[in-house]
């Protein structure tokens, strides 16, 4: 049965279009429309209900040893108060999920994808053999909101006890928001500055309302999943099930920087070492359409009439005012400026490989 989030009534009051996603009813867009929602995040700020996202708390004396075993990144290098990205792989080097790991003073907090919540938890519990570790899925009691965009700091600051100006990108702090104990990460999935808030689920309405009360006069609007998808794609952030999956390695996906091959004994290491030695046969590339048309998930990529790859995601990109996408193609076609065709309704439409990302995240500039 599809779950309603604590904010379901709020979304319906605003005439949001609700869709089923990962077992939840979530707003795909508000009457504002996905294009305006997208642009507003780039220019002002947007608020996203992402309660569907999963969270797992890992604690106990062997918490680090456990994460070193299941994560590809070197978790021993993660500092307290920082958010770090890491894929989690199968023995064959393909991806179980990609995660954000927050190191807390006494435990680790792992943010995982909504669609993989149950699978990840089973996977973790199946691989803690011999270690003194507690693995707790806390998704039910944890609410997650994302406040994204250049005005996020000034909107959040009046109701947040922590000094946000002191927070660097990818840092995190335990504080309060609207007097509610909240874990705040300066993180996001849009390519903009912003915050992700984790707090007790029963407080969702209170925090949502307060943020909009402060933010709406400054241009903040609620945003849906459609804008979330186009924002992350402009920033070339991977989505599980599209760019990464149980049939792709992080190396092919260009996530080699999050794979610590020197680290011994992590699941998938041997396969990834081999893949690294051989060199990935396919690369995840970004492309911009030269002809018009929307490239979409699973459309074929062709060259000289021959199919050479597949589109993972494609959109009309509002910030660029262009049709763009990502695709897997053989290494020979991965260089920027390479001309490729995307088969849109069986007709070849011209496109060109470009350097990633389409939109350089604001916090990196």
């Amino acid at each position, binding site marked *: 049965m599809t779950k309603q989030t604590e904010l379901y009534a709020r979304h319906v009051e605003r005439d949001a279009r609700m869709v089923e996603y990962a077992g939840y009813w979530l707003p795909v867009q508000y009457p504002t429309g996905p294009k305006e929602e997208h642009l507003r995040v780039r220019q002002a700020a947007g608020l996203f209900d992402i309660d569907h996202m999963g969270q797992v708390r890992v604690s106990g004396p062997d918490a680090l040893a456990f994460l070193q075993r299941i994560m590809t990144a070197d978790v021993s290098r993660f500092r307290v108060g920082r958010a770090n990205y890491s894929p989690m792989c199968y023995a064959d080097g393909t991806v179980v999920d990609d995660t954000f790991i927050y190191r807390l003073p006494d435990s680790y907090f792992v943010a995982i994808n909504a669609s993989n919540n149950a699978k990840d938890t089973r996977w973790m519990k199946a691989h803690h053999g011999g270690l003194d570790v507690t693995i707790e899925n806390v998704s039910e009691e944890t609410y997650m909101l994302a406040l994204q965009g250049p005005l996020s700091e000034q909107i959040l600051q009046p109701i947040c006890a922590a000094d946000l100006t002191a927070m660097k990108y990818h840092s995190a702090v335990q504080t309060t928001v609207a007097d509610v104990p909240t874990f705040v990460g300066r993180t996001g999935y849009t390519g903009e500055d912003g915050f992700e808030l984790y707090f007790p689920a029963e407080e969702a309405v209170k925090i949502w309302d307060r943020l909009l009360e402060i933010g709406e006069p400054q241009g903040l609007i609620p945003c849906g999943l459609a804008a979330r998808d186009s924002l992350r794609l402009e920033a070339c952030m991977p989505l599980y099930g599209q760019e990464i999956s149980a049939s792709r390695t992080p190396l092919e996906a260009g996530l080699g920087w999050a794979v610590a091959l020197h680290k011994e004994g992590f699941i998938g290491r041997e396969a990834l070492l081999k893949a690294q030695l051989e060199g990935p046969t396919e690369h995840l590339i970004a492309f911009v359409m030269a002809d018009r048309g929307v490239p979409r998930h699973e459309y074929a990529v062709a060259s000289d009439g021959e199919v050479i790859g597949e589109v993972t995601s494609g959109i*009309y990109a509002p910030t660029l005012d262009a049709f763009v996408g990502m695709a897997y193609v053989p290494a020979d076609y991965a260089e920027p400026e390479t001309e490729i065709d995307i088969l849109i309704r069986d007709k070849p439409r011209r496109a060109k490989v470009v350097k990633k990302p389409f939109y350089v995240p604001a916090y990196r500039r």
Partner: protein
Amino acid sequence: MAVKVHPDCRYTKSHEWVRMEGEHAYAGITDYAQTQLSDIVYVELPEPGDSFSQGEIYAVVESVKAASDCYLPVAGEIVEINEELEDTPDLVNQDCYGEGWFVRILVEDPDEVEDLMDAEEYRQFAEEAEEEGAH
């Protein structure tokens, strides 16, 4: 939300409109359709000179979330396409019965137009569809 209709148009169950002007007809998608699709980012139109039978797919509308087929409300030959849509597909969102028209058709059989729903019939039909969509 109220479904907007144009009094001079005839309508199909797949939410296209057609409006006769002499022996030609203009066609496009209805307000209900553009609202459902939301932000339209591309419209793939046929070439002038192409002929279609009634109900045949003649265009594709790309919104943020999906590509949707459009069916020609009446049989005929395409004599003109709305080239403005190439650069400004959102005209369909802004003014679907006016500036956001798709094609002008040389109609084979004007009786086909008469058999379609009139504005009032269509309004009722679309409001029922909307009602169902809300549940």
